[in-house]
């Protein structure tokens, strides 16, 4: 099962940037998340992943599972599934896409890539609230402003 999850993660998340641990990390997160689900749901999820692994076969596009295909080919299969006209097939993709994408885009290197830096912003806001509690109400300098945002 671990191999299937690694293959699915490899096909779903961006090829770069990655660290040497990225695939392990997002797969570990998926396995941790499963522990928080009811056993029946976790079991169904894992069966769904096995079914996905054999997508080339049931799509009549090949005889080998995704784990035996190059990542680019496996990705093409998965992209086709996310765009399937059949709802149950798209539904199969909800779980892995949600788990792997949310895990990938939660990493610091991915944050840097998309220029998202919540930690310093939150620290700044905690300090602002602390000053407010001490009696210094925020002024116009403390407002969140990015003038270009309302340019049009």
């Amino acid at each position, binding site marked *: 099962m671990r191999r299937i999850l690694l293959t699915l993660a490899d*096909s*779903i*998340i*961006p*090829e770069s940037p990655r660290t040497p641990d990225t695939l392990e990390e997002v797969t570990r*997160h998926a396995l*941790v*998340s*499963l*522990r*928080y*689900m*009811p056993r*029946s*749901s976790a079991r169904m*999820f894992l069966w769904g992943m096995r079914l996905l692994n054999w997508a080339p076969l049931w799509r009549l596009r090949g005889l080998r599972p995704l784990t035996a295909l190059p990542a680019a080919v496996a*990705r093409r299969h998965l*992209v086709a599934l*996310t*765009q399937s006209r059949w*709802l149950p097939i798209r*539904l199969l993709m*909800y779980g892995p*896409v*949600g*788990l792997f*994408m*949310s*895990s*990938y*885009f*939660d990493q610091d290197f*991915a*944050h840097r*890539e*998309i*220029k*998202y830096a*919540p*930690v310093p*912003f*939150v620290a700044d*806001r*905690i300090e*602002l*609230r602390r000053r*407010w*509690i001490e009696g210094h109400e*925020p*002024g*116009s300098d*403390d*407002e*969140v*402003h*990015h003038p270009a*945002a*309302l*340019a*049009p």
Partner: protein
Amino acid sequence: MTILAHRDYRQVETHEAEVAVIGTGAGGAVVGTELAEAGRDVLFVEEGGYHPTSSFNPYLTESLPRLFRDAGGTIIMGRPPIPYAEGRCVGGGTVVNGGMTWRPPEQVLMQWARLTGQPDLGPKAMEPVFDRVEQRIHAKPQHPSSIGEDSRLLERGARRLGWRYEPNRRAQDRCVGSNQCLTGCPTGAKQSTLVSYLPRALSRGARCLTEVRANRLWIENGRCVGVLGSGINPRTREEDVEVRVRAKAVVVACGAIQTPFLLLRHRLGRPSRQLGKNFLCHPNTKVLAIYPHDIYAWQGVSQGGQIREFRDEGILMAENAVPPGTAAAQIPFLGDEALELMKRYNAMAMTGVLVEDSHAGSVSRCLGAPLAKYSITPYDHERFLRGVRYLATLHFEMGAEKVILPFSNFHVANDVDDLAEIERTQRSRSTIELFTVHMMGTCRMGSDPRDSVVNMSGELWDLPGCYVADASLFPTAVGVNPQVTIMAMATLVAQRLRLPN
């Protein structure tokens, strides 16, 4: 202050209290606090862990498993299937919600009064109850310093189109707009029950057993006399401790899915067969706009206001900036294509359309887990399409480059003319992608055992001593964010709860 966790339990743990309250969210915390303040000995039973404000951080991989049920991976089956999220931690959903405090529209309360034959659910009679709740959670508009550019953009767009925009009143005390409502407010400003109600209860002697799953009600001679549960080892997730709580009354406040799930185990709700029925979920869908300039939607409060122009049609629209992990899980691309779009994360305005339920689903038990079923009607579908078109039009009016639409077969509109394609491509309800966090209505309150699950005190018609105090009580949909309505109903239940001698 007594908060116990798995490490504190013996192999068989037994407690006694006057009132056991299962759940510490908007319903459980309120009913328990009101009772504790009235001098009752209250014991909370909470499945999740206790995570104080200082532990909250913006990382989803940490927050999802510890704050959300099933690590956020839950789904309502139907056409279309609807993923949903609910809290599982001390404070429940109030820790991970947006903290909106909209009262239900007057006509909803009038309808409740009419349906139940009880004028005390009407708008006039409920006013002091709402006042009390709102005072306790500091419901008020946001300070200007907390408003972000995405909220301003939506407001300006609405005004340009002549639509009514109303700033949100939120449960907050000096909110500075850190925009981390979803992963637990790291400043302590959001007045979740974790920081508002529960400290009051604990200071009055209430106790809280955390990491305990309530598996069964303890029933003797036809009366509910406690809760039987198990302690969950947070490391292994195994249920390895037996926990028993004996009480004169039990209040079930686990939310509109878990409450009927627990009660159905005992085949309750017989008189009306309504237990688990009347499931409402106020679904929503997303509309992501990419602007040519950065907006930094993740700075400033999530949901500064709502577009309420179409409220009478049951349509609400709002911005709702979510972390990149959540946004990436919702976009219709994989791999590098997804990254290309996510590189525009700072230029994204994340908005959504909420549609009031016109039809109910159900909750039942299946293979040891709750099975929620709900399908939108063609009428709901038509309103969703209209809402998506309205929002996309607003974004193009405000200069958006493109809009990512919530349809599996029509992802991107590049200009306003593309929106005409919505009519042509969206014939099936299966192609729209929905989400929800507002589950309600599976143990409806009423004055007739033939058409309701609980009486006007919240007590089950067929199980004395067992009360319900959460969104399950709602007789009909409220059509707005339900937090204060849940809190008001829980306050009523606390006022009406009677203990046996």
